[in-house]
């Protein structure tokens, strides 16, 4: 299998090489710039190019940045867990219980992509707001006396909005992993005495693990860096590290500090992702 994987990987690389070159220019170059910046200092408009670790010192010791960093991680971890937990049953249902028109269902799942992300965020504002659909409905039905305020302009709103936005991205990898499971393996487990529940934990879940890990990373990584959602629905409680990075590059005129914060966030999320990846490999995945 090892050689086969390598060959597959080789073919894959060949296939993506033009894209790869593009990515190199469009992604790696700016990234290098950000990293370089993080070792410089800025005083209003002048940039001092002597190398220093001051930015990192500040980024890692200032309580404000620590709070924001923790909050970002917390929010994106919650979003990830919620999204993947909701995505799994949907993907499972699609793969195991939808017999006809699977393609149609998959298509429907991607429908939210038809509107811009900003529009969708604004829609959530309309739904969750003080006089929003959600509150007026509940009040109209008499469940609540006055509008709920804990659902907008705070962490909860950020979680709901992001979980909704990323759901399709989380469903698809899990769906693909489930589709790849040879159904005779499930029958074999049943044949050897497993109840449906035991079989799920011994066969289905481990074999779906690559998809679950992929979904987790696909949701986790971008949500940490999201700054639009917290800005629009997060209030002050919902602000995240990326909002601070944006401020440093903009109003605060301290691009090197912003860069140091960005690189720090990247390293932290990189480590967490690697951890998840290997944990997933270990859990399910003594597969291949």
């Amino acid at each position, binding site marked *: *299998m090892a050689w086969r994987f390598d060959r597959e990987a080789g073919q894959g690389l060949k296939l993506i090489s033009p894209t790869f070159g593009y990515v190199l220019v469009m992604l790696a170059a700016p990234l290098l710039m950000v990293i370089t910046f993080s070792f410089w200092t800025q005083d209003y408009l002048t940039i001092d190019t002597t190398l220093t670790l001051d930015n990192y010192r500040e980024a890692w010791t200032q309580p404000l940045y620590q709070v924001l960093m923790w909050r970002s991680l917390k929010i994106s971890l919650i979003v990830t867990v919620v999204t993947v937990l909701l995505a799994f049953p949907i993907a499972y249902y699609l793969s195991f219980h939808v017999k006809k028109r699977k393609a149609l269902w998959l298509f429907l799942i991607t429908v939210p992509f038809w509107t811009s992300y900003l529009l969708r965020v604004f829609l959530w504002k309309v739904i969750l707001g003080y006089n929003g659909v959600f509150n007026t409905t509940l009040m109209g039905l008499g469940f609540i006396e006055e509008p709920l305020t804990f659902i907008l302009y705070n962490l909860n709103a950020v979680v709901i909005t992001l979980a909704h936005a990323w759901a399709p991205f989380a469903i698809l990898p899990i769906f693909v992993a489930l589709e790849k499971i*040879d159904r*005779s393996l499930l029958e074999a*487990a049943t044949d050897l005495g497993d*109840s449906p529940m035991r079989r799920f934990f011994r066969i289905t879940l481990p074999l779906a693990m690559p998809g679950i890990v992929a979904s987790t990373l696909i949701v986790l990584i971008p949500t940490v860096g999201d700054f639009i959602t917290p800005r629009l629905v997060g209030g002050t409680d919902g602000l995240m590290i990326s909002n601070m990075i944006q401020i440093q590059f903009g109003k605060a005129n301290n691009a090197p500090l912003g860069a140091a914060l960005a690189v720090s966030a990247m390293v932290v999320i990189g480590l967490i992702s690697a951890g998840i990846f290997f944990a997933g490999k270990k859990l399910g995945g*003594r*597969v291949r």
Partner: protein
Amino acid sequence: MQDDKTPMIAIRDVVKKFGSFTALHGITADIREGEFFSLLGPSGCGKTTLLRTIAGFEPTTSGTIAIDGKNMADIPANDRPTNMVFQSYAIFPHLNVEENVGYGLKTRKMPKKDIAREVAEVLSLVDMEGYGKRKAHELSGGQRQRVALARALVMKPKVILLDEPLSALDKKLRDQMQVELRSLQRSIGITFILVTHDQEEALIMSDRIAVMFEGQIEQLDTPEGLYRRPVNKRVASFIGVMNFLSAKVTEQTDTHLTLDMDALGKIDLPRDRLGEDITPESIGTVGVRPEMLTVLFDQSDWSQNKVEGEVVDTEYYGDMTYYKVRLPGRDAPLSISMRNTAGRSVVPPGSPVTVGWGAESIVVFGD
């Protein structure tokens, strides 16, 4: 325990429908304890479906299946005393060989130490010692097949169900595995039900064979019974090679019939040679196996009946020669197989020959 009368598996009027399509049209059969039983038939005739209803993967539309005297209607697949060797082998890819083989024992909550012992035992039984730590993708097709078999054997079920277990192997390995599987089954005495579309495989391995066509069992018999006394033309041509000749009953007595056959002429047959369902009036065809016909090399060679013909084709196989011989008054040539013995040379195409045959080799079919 069962007494001698209770079959290991009693299948009664089993019907299986997929929507409007009927895959099994009322199957009835008894499978005995310790028997090597085969389901033989062309692709799509419902063999796998029948096997899966026994295993509990497909509910029957009507009819009953009892295993060891116990009706299986309400018993789910995971509680049935059967284990399956899947056509694809279905080796769990995330587990190694030991974990695969021990999978079912773990479900039974057997202590780890005992599982290890049982697994080691069964792996040596299938000649796979030392492979315990390998993953499925590190095994050859033949080895996977052995692991799949070991995984079923270790459960010590009442019945092992095998769905074309050898069809993915190359010819040489398949021949070897047929013999091994057969002798393994004899030595452990578990009832085996094998699904195959390969008539030779079924003949070699089975105690009894059910020949299926289009969701029905056409004949259930021993290999020899099937070969020598096929009940109809379809079974006859599916098992081995058969020459068919049209025939009519011309005279009848209390004990005998006189048949007038295409090209071979007239013979007398005792009435008890007819199968149960065959009346003299329904007879339209007779069959004769290629090895029951003889190419006579010398005009003076003895044979019960003789007929003159011409060799139109010769296939030489070393130990055997296959002839196609045209007889006067008949378009399709007869197939004749001859064992090559010392001092007997091959007759080239175009040569006139005498074909000898005996009345006892004629199989009579109703139409």
